[in-house]
């Protein structure tokens, strides 16, 4: 079985973001980067499946971007991916989600991947479109925002998160693609011995120009911080009401009360 997990490297969200010179994206100077959180769930799930299936299964991790994304790739390799593809692209932030999906699809099309994992969305752009549009361009079955995963005999059983804390269960025949949500699993820490082993794993370099890329459909025209406003939500009412409101918020917005 062949598995692919697609990851993105994003800035630490606690960074202070400043617009770049063109005012259409953030300035990368002085930012610290790490693996997109949702992609960590994707990697963990893919590695768990890889471990469950054992010999004969190959798990590839793919990332598009400048040289710095190799750090995220190496982390994924240290978590247990078998090999990696680095699509070298220094201008990836200027591409729209459909174009990025077209690059992944161009790479994956003739590789025979049975299952592709991606994060639900990236923490920086947050379009939540790349995963689903890769599936669209490759003609794969797809489900999104999964918080539970099982695979047996060519069928994926995924628990999905719907609005308001409701869950749904979806079954898909492979080849398929799933996008992963917080709560799916607890990503492992790369251990030192596995960081060492990752150094020996193969990273294939592909200049982005070698992969056919779709036309740009959407252009970011402005990047700016929001106007300042008062912080936080102020809840009002008696204690009983307040508790209900807090519980509702915790259920809706966090993993604390699942």
């Amino acid at each position: 079985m062949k598995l692919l997990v697609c990851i993105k490297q994003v800035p630490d969200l606690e960074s202070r973001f400043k617009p770049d010179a063109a005012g259409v994206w953030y300035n990368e100077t002085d930012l610290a980067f790490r693996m997109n959180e949702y992609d960590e769930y994707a990697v963990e799930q893919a590695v768990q499946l890889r471990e469950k299936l054992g010999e004969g299964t190959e798990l590839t991790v793919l990332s598009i971007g400048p040289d710095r994304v190799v750090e995220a790739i190496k982390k994924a390799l240290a978590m247990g991916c078998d090999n990696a593809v680095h699509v070298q692209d220094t201008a990836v932030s200027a591409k729209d989600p459909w174009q990025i999906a077209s690059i992944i699809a161009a790479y994956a099309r003739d590789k025979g991947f049975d299952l592709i994992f991606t994060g639900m969305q990236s923490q920086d752009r947050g379009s939540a479109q790349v995963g689903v549009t890769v599936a669209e361009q490759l003609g794969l079955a797809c489900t999104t925002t999964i918080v539970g995963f099982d695979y047996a005999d060519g069928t994926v059983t995924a628990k999905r998160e719907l609005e308001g804390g409701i869950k749904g269960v979806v079954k898909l025949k492979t080849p398929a693609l799933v996008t992963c949500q917080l709560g799916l699993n607890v990503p492992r820490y790369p251990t030192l011995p596995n960081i060492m082993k990752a150094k020996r794993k193969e990273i294939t370099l592909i200049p982005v120009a070698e992969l056919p890329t779709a036309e740009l459909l959407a252009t970011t025209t402005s990047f700016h911080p929001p106007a300042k406003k008062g912080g936080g939500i102020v809840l009002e009412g008696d204690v009983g009401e307040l508790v209900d409101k807090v519980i509702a918020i915790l259920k809706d917005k966090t993993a604390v009360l699942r």
Partner: protein
Amino acid sequence: MNFELSQDHKVLQSAVRDFVEKEIKPIAMKIDEEHMIPDALVTKMGEMGFLGSYLPEEYGGAGLDMLSYAIVVEEVSKACGSSGVLISAHTSLCSGPIYTFGTEAQKKKWLPALNTGETIGCFLLTEPDAGSDAGGTATTYTREGDEFVINGSKTFITNGGYLGTGVLLASYDRSLKHKGISAFIVDLKSPGVTILKNENKMGIRGSYTTAFAFDNLRVPVENLLGQEGKGFNVAMDTLNGGRIGIASQALGIAEGAFERALAYSKERKQFGQAISEFQAIQFKLADMYTSIETSKLLTYRAACLKDAKKNYTMESAMCKMHASETATYVTKEAIQIHGGYGFIVDYEVERMYRDAKITEIYEGTNEVQRVVISKLLLS
């Protein structure tokens, strides 16, 4: 010259940082209060490979380098100086000399359990009357058939309380001074080993500092580490490497305190503005950060020299001395920036201040480091 960490080192740094943030930082205060690092944490650090970072994979280590080790100790110490020194003493002072001076059979026998943290290592050099002056070792050994028989006492033994594996220095003939000393690998669970006490300390309270008595401790001859009579060389080489570990620990403690002081200075308001707006605080922050960065460069450089198999005696002495003095200075200023709150346990900088002091003392006092540096300058 390139002062950037490699991508591999950055991956490692970020992995260690994530682990420390979730697994150590939340319990650092408890470790200090209860004078104990939970066994579960020691096990997890073993699983992470923190206890065998630079030892080769064939002996169960992670196979990384000295710089990786320095980064691990630094990152762990940012949250908990006790856990930092556990790693440092274990790796540099026990696994290190067994790897450097051990026979193939000794390495195969002892290193795998040490590298995974199944047993915790320590270094038994210091005695009530022999610290900086290792030649004054009063613990003696005699040979009886296929065994050495060791008698005497050791004190201030970091990690001793785990009763794991130790590298022990003892003298055949005290009149020979350092020429009479040999090194042995000992299993501290053997008969004849008694813990006199685990010391109650000012800082690094989660770390064991143990006093031992040895009464006819029998060690098989195959546990002699290096040549007989060459134990002093084993000790000096071990301490050289160990200094990089202590420098990393001190660096981490300083960075941990600095992070808190910087954040607090931006939150705390007095006279209608954040105290970070006052030049008095700004200058403190500038001085603290400069000392930290200097310590980091010295420490990483010493680690890189060791990795390159170049002489690093001077550099390890300098980084240990400078980083430890930075740690006491930065933690003290961090308390000052916190004002009265800094004196309160909950704000954690007072613990860092207490943890920092020992780094000026152990693995060669800073006075000894100055002797080492000046001797090399003048030789």
